[in-house]
């Protein structure tokens, strides 16, 4: 019964996206660390996760949302314009870092807001 409190699709989706942003930060950290390593291929969260999550959100099934799992994969879209086979571009990576940071803030506020609303409803005090 307590699970019903925390099974709203929006809340679950926000939690999953939070997992995704933390994982993506790890990938970006690895990419920027290896910006000079020959033949390093850039990593990112697997694009299949995004499509899975969007599908799960449209169906609105809490179980389906909770069963999606983000994971890292080599980015096959990235092309290597460099001589040493490295597919990391510094500026692109910095932009992704900034964007990921803002996404993380957004997801944190969504999750935090949901929990605060629950608290307000339960205790009756702001």
């Amino acid at each position, binding site marked *: 019964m307590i699970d019903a409190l925390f099974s709203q699709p929006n809340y679950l989706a926000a939690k999953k996206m939070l997992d995704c*942003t*933390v*994982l993506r*930060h*790890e*990938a*970006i*950290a*690895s990419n*920027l*660390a*290896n*910006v*000079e*390593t*020959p033949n*390093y*291929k850039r*990593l990112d969260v697997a694009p299949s996760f995004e499509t899975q999550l969007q599908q799960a959100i449209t169906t609105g099934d809490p179980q389906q949302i909770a069963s999606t799992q983000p*994971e*890292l*994969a*080599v980015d096959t879209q990235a092309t290597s314009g460099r001589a040493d086979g490295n597919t990391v571009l*510094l500026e692109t*990576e*910095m932009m992704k*870092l900034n964007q*990921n*940071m803002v996404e*993380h*803030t957004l997801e*944190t506020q969504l*999750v*935090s807001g949901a*929990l*605060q609303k629950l*608290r307000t409803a339960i205790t009756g005090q702001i």
Partner: protein
Amino acid sequence: MINILPGIDSTSAALNAERIRMDVVSENIANVNTTRGLDGKPYQREQVVFESVLQAQQNSDALGSAPQTVQIARIEKDQRPPIMVYNPSHPDANAQGMVAMPDISIPEEMVDMIAASRAFEANLAVVKDARAMAMETLSIGKH
């Protein structure tokens, strides 16, 4: 180690590696005119070789899809032969008046240094962001 800052292993290894690279570059620049090193031969330019090491992770599956840290594989001496410059008044000039100078070009070293310093700053930004993310996470649910 407590897993609070995501990606901190990659970033700290990278900061280390870039700093070592800067050290090597500044050593090259300092020795641009060294005609007699410790072994009696002109200074041989040094170069770092980066390699990426798979972080030991409990659920790392295929190689290449887990975060990788970087490390300096080795600092190797460049094999470029020293350039001969005509300078008969130099104490190290040989019989023909040619001096063997290290084949170090300052612009090349400066470009290396700029690249290393940009990579260093990028990794610093990553650490700052990781910290900001962790602080935000700690205030979930609080007013």
